[in-house]
């Protein structure tokens, strides 16, 4: 369309009369009304809201419930020596008191006259300790192994992958039982054994993340700037690989608590400590008459593990928005 045609001028002036005045210092397109054509600059982006994922997480009612319960359990664990200063393994009352029978023992007593409530509150200590410690240990080893395998590739990857595969093939709980039986049961050996069977999952996950992330441009950029491998692995790639690892960690704590309780149930727990599992094991024989001895500690386990799983779900929804679309 020639810009100097009479018709064009006639249209332009009439259009200019009806159109809103464009701001000054804009290109000479008088007949353009489309708002996007007018703004030649990129839109002003608001700065990235910090902790957007945290807000998303906190809007999830299930996750809130999980956190509340977990905090309650943690509180129990921390204040147990204050609330129940007596050794929970000490005999303090008549045996086989039912919950509610005696106000001094709100949840009753077991076959040896030990306070069930004290046992439950103290039991939180070993469960949470083993759960968190084993997970931290498993995460550390798993992240390092997975990062090295995924980042360097080649022979390193082949060797480490084979190692991961070996440990994943061994049935986890059987290996834990074998290790604890060999190394004499106490809190440390239990934590170590559980970490030994949980690190492969983290390693596999980390390896997958690193393999895909190391192709990205920001890694090439870092290399060309002269940063060493260590910096790139831990300061560049790892922060981006964290979301699925964070989600997995809460599930790992849940799994560790389940394994610890199973070990204590079997008699392979720390003999100096009261554990929910050992309480269930002790009450097993009396299931016909005093079934509260098995039911109550089990409920404690279920509630704690459920809380952790709810948190894990909430983390997943917050950090992996793609999957939370299913909720719509």
């Amino acid at each position, binding site marked *: 369309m020639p810009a100097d*045609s009479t018709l064009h001028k006639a*249209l332009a002036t009439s259009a200019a009369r*009806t159109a809103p005045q464009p701001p000054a210092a804009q290109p000479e397109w008088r007949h*353009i*009304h*489309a708002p*996007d054509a007018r703004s030649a600059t990129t839109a002003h982006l608001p700065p990235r809201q910090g902790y957007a994922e945290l807000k998303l997480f906190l809007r999830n009612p299930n996750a809130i419930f999980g956190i509340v319960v977990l905090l309650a359990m943690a509180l129990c664990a921390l204040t147990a020596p204050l609330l129940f200063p007596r050794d929970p393994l000490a005999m303090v009352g008549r045996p086989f008191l039912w919950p509610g029978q005696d106000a001094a023992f709100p949840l009753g007593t077991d076959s040896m006259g030990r306070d069930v409530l004290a046992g439950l509150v103290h039991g939180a200590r070993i469960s949470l300790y083993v759960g968190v410690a084993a997970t931290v240990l498993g995460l550390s080893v798993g992240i390092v192994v997975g990062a090295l395998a995924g980042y360097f590739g080649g022979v390193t990857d082949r060797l480490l992958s084979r190692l991961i595969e070996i440990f994943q093939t061994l049935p986890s709980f059987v290996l834990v039982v074998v290790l604890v039986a060999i190394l004499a049961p106490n809190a440390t050996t239990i934590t170590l054994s559980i970490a030994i069977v949980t690190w492969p999952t983290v390693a596999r996950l980390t390896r997958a993340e690193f393999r895909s992330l190391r192709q990205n441009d920001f890694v090439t950029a870092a290399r060309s700037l002269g940063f060493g491998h260590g910096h790139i692995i831990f300061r560049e790639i790892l922060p981006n690989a964290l979301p699925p690892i964070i989600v997995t960690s809460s599930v790992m704590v849940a799994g560790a608590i389940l394994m610890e309780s199973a070990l204590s149930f079997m008699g392979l727990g720390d003999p100096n400590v009261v554990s929910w599992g050992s309480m269930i094991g002790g009450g097993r024989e009396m299931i016909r008459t005093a079934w509260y001895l098995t039911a109550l500690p089990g409920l404690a386990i279920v509630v704690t593990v459920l809380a952790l799983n709810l948190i894990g779900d909430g983390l997943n929804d917050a950090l992996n928005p793609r999957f939370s679309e299913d909720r719509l």
Partner: protein
Amino acid sequence: MSAVLAVENLSVAFGPARPVERVSFHVNPRETLAIVGESGSGKSLTALSMMGLLPRNARASGQILIRTPQGRVDMLALPERRRRLLRGKQIAMVFQEPMTSLNPVHTIGRQIEETLIAHENLDRAARRARVLELMNLVRIPDAARRIDDYPHQLSGGMRQRVMIAMAVACRPRILIADEATTALDVTIQAQILQLLDNLRRELDVAVVLITHDLGVVSQWADRVVVMYAGLHVEEATPAQLFADPLHPYSHGLLAASPRNSEGLTYRDAPLAEIPGSIASARGEVGCPFRPRCPAAREVCGAVVPPPVPHRGDRLVACHFPGILTEEARLVPAFA
């Protein structure tokens, strides 16, 4: 009615958004109708409405009339289980992405056969024979061996042929091709379009070609419907449209496409473009093209122009049709 498919005042709404607004057109037997528009024009939604495949949260109004041996039926008024009987049997569709439109875990023979299982009463041997026949019809080489192949073993062009075989298996009256060749190489495109044209004549089926490619339109279409922002803005034969576009949008489309006959090279002049984007149509009270139209006037912002007949059998939805092509035509000043 002699038309095999008639869309009457079709509107589709998703909540407050109305991506298709009172669209009407018809398709005659054994003709190729092209529906042209850019992304966001509503052409794919129109196609899905014709098949009764709109998502659950879409609200459609108007009529989609299909002529079946049992008489005229309105696709939108039928319950789902009746619609299902029409799909594949009277009206069929070929989609854009052949790579993902076939189920990777079933053989192509089985997937073609499924249409026959759903609509026809043949025994196993007869079905297999029909499948081979269809594969030959769409020119898949070595059909007897390929019938047990899986989709990942075929190229894009081959997969699209399989899709076409599935679509024409039960001899539908109408075949919709929604950007069916966009994802293919240019040479394969031409083959597939030729195939569709052959099938149109051999099987007596009307083809609706949904595309954004004016070259395809000029070569294969008998009539063209131009859509913009959910509205039907122009309808003509390709010859009429290319020689004399009446709607400013059609005019812009043609101006923006390089035409070999004019010896246009990039050194001579830059390609004309239609400034702005289709997003500018949102919220417009009058003609949705107004923000991008060089000839927009006050009435354009107030009243939506309906498609009206113009110069015989053409339709155009514009207050000032032909304003951009005829400089000589002076536009009366408006108060």
